[in-house]
C-alpha cells in the first residue's frame, strides 16, 4: 500500500470500557494501582468512579497501528502516547490517526489519537513504522 501524507487511517472502535475489563487488564498488565479497581480509593482521589488505565488507550492505538500496518509488511520502531483526558467505565473509545510523513525508504510517521463518544481526544501519540525489506 502506498501511503500519502495526511491520509487517514482506518479507525478501530472498541466496545465500552467496563470495570470488568479494567480488572482483566490490571491482572494481565501487572498494574497494581487500586485507582483502576477500587471505587472508594478512586473517590478518595477525587474521581467519581474507577478510572481506566492510560496504557489501555495506548493498547487501542497499537491495535489501530496493527490494523493499518500489517506485521507481514511493517515493523513499528517507535511508539509514544500522551494521556490527555481520563477515561471512565462506560466511555467508548475510537483509535484512529493520520499519516504525518512518508520517508523515501517507505517508512511512515503516524499521528494517532483516541477519541471518546463525545469527540474528546483522550490520548495522543506518534509512531514510526518501518517498511520491511523483502
Amino acid at each position, binding site marked *: 500500500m502506498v501511503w500519502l501524507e495526511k491520509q487517514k487511517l482506518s479507525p478501530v472502535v472498541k466496545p465500552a470500557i467496563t470495570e470488568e475489563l479494567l480488572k482483566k487488564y490490571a491482572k494481565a*498488565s*501487572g498494574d497494581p494501582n487500586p485507582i483502576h479497581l477500587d471505587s472508594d480509593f478512586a473517590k478518595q482521589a477525587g474521581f467519581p468512579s474507577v478510572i481506566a488505565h492510560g*496504557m489501555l488507550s*495506548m*493498547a487501542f492505538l497499537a491495535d489501530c497501528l496493527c490494523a493499518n500496518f500489517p506485521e507481514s509488511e511493517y515493523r513499528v520502531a517507535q511508539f*509514544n502516547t500522551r494521556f490527555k483526558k481520563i477515561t471512565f467505565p462506560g466511555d467508548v473509545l475510537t483509535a484512529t490517526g493520520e499519516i504525518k510523513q512518508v520517508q523515501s525508504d517507505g517508512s511512515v510517521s503516524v499521528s494517532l489519537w483516541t477519541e471518546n463518544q463525545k469527540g474528546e481526544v483522550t490520548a495522543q501519540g506518534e509512531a514510526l513504522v518501518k517498511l520491511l525489506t523483502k
Partner: protein
Amino acid sequence: MKDLIQFQAEPLTKEDIKEFSSSTLSNHSLFPLTFPTRYRNGEFELLIELKIDMRNLLHTEQEYVYHEPFKLGDVPLVTTRLKEHKERRRMQFVTAETEVICGGRKKITAVSSFVIREKTTKESV
C-alpha cells in the same frame, strides 16, 4: 534510596500474550506493542521508594523504542532507572526508563512519565 531496580521476568509464553491481547480486546498483534507494560514492576517499586501516594499519581506519557522483536521463550532481564524526579508548583514529576534485555540482546527501551498532583508522602502505599 534506590534509583535502580533490576529483576528477571518469567519466560515469555503464548499464554501470556493471549491473556494480554484478550485484556486489550485485541486480536491483531502476534506480539502486542504495549505488552512490555508487564515489565513496569520496577517503576512501581521506585514510586513506592519515593513514597508517592497512588491516589495522586497520573501516568502522563509512555514511550517505547523497539530494538528487536521478542520471541516466545525469551527470558527478560528488566532494568528500571529513575531518570528524573522534580517538584514544581506543589506537583512532582517523575520519569523512569526501563530497558529489557533477553539473552544479551536489547529488545526495548521504555520511558514512563508521571505527575503526582500534589506533594504528599505516606509511610506505605
